[in-house]
């Protein structure tokens, strides 16, 4: 069973990116996501937020909503915007094998969203793009480490 929790709504401008990342990081930590996974989640949230600011609302006139819940052993973050319909996850994987001269940076942000979460899904609902990022709880790396307690 999923339990919805508090959302935040932020203006879709770059200077709100840190607030979006901090929201995701603190809620994920409280929900029990292990410390080792938090930097990757932060990175995914930054990339998603920046993408909305630069492509969804280039004039800066929009908002980004973040909400979260836990269920089935996972922390789920949803990032919603009312910008033009755009499936971020439809961006093709970047070519990671090319040399410096030919290397393009495009697509790398989406690549990070895919790689640093356990699952990423997009849907269009009620005129909004909704990116859902799922991170499994309590999954530690194969090598032992001193995970921090969040009590």
């Amino acid at each position, binding site marked *: 069973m999923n339990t919805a929790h508090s959302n935040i709504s932020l203006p879709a401008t770059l200077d709100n990116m840190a607030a979006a990342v901090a929201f995701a990081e603190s809620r994920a930590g409280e929900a029990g996501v292990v410390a080792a996974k938090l930097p990757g989640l932060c990175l995914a949230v930054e990339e998603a937020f920046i993408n909305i600011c630069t492509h969804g609302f280039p004039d800066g006139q929009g908002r980004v909503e973040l909400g979260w819940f836990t269920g089935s052993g996972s922390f789920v973050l949803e990032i919603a915007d009312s910008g033009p319909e755009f499936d971020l996850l439809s961006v093709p994987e970047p070519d990671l094998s090319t040399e410096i*001269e030919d290397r393009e940076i495009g697509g790398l942000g989406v690549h990070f969203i895919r790689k640093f979460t356990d699952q990423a899904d997009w849907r269009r609902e009620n005129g909004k793009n909704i990116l859902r990022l799922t991170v499994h709880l309590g999954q530690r790396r194969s090598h032992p480490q001193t995970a921090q307690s969040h009590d």
Partner: protein
Amino acid sequence: MDIQINKVEQTFIVSASGKIDAMTSPSYEASIAGQIEAGSLSLVLDLGGVDYISSAGLRVILAAAKSLKNRGGSLLLANARGPVKEVFDISGFGSVFKIFDSVDAAVSTASR
């Protein structure tokens, strides 16, 4: 993010600390571009104090590498650790760039 610049022989070392994200990458880019425009052909980016880098930071590093290569120079990286190393590996930058374990090792390679 804080930035320090040191010079060893003909190599400039740009040492950043903190986060290199979409907000801080413009000042990181300006520091690096300043060195390149001043004529430096050998740059080492010391990432030892960096605990977070996003695609905005990688964009800066890639642009600097291209710019230096076009001028016949070179860009070397040092001290990528933990989450930063992971980002380099996942981006494929780990195979595009030489990442040295220490600034000294990068400088001695750059000085050859």
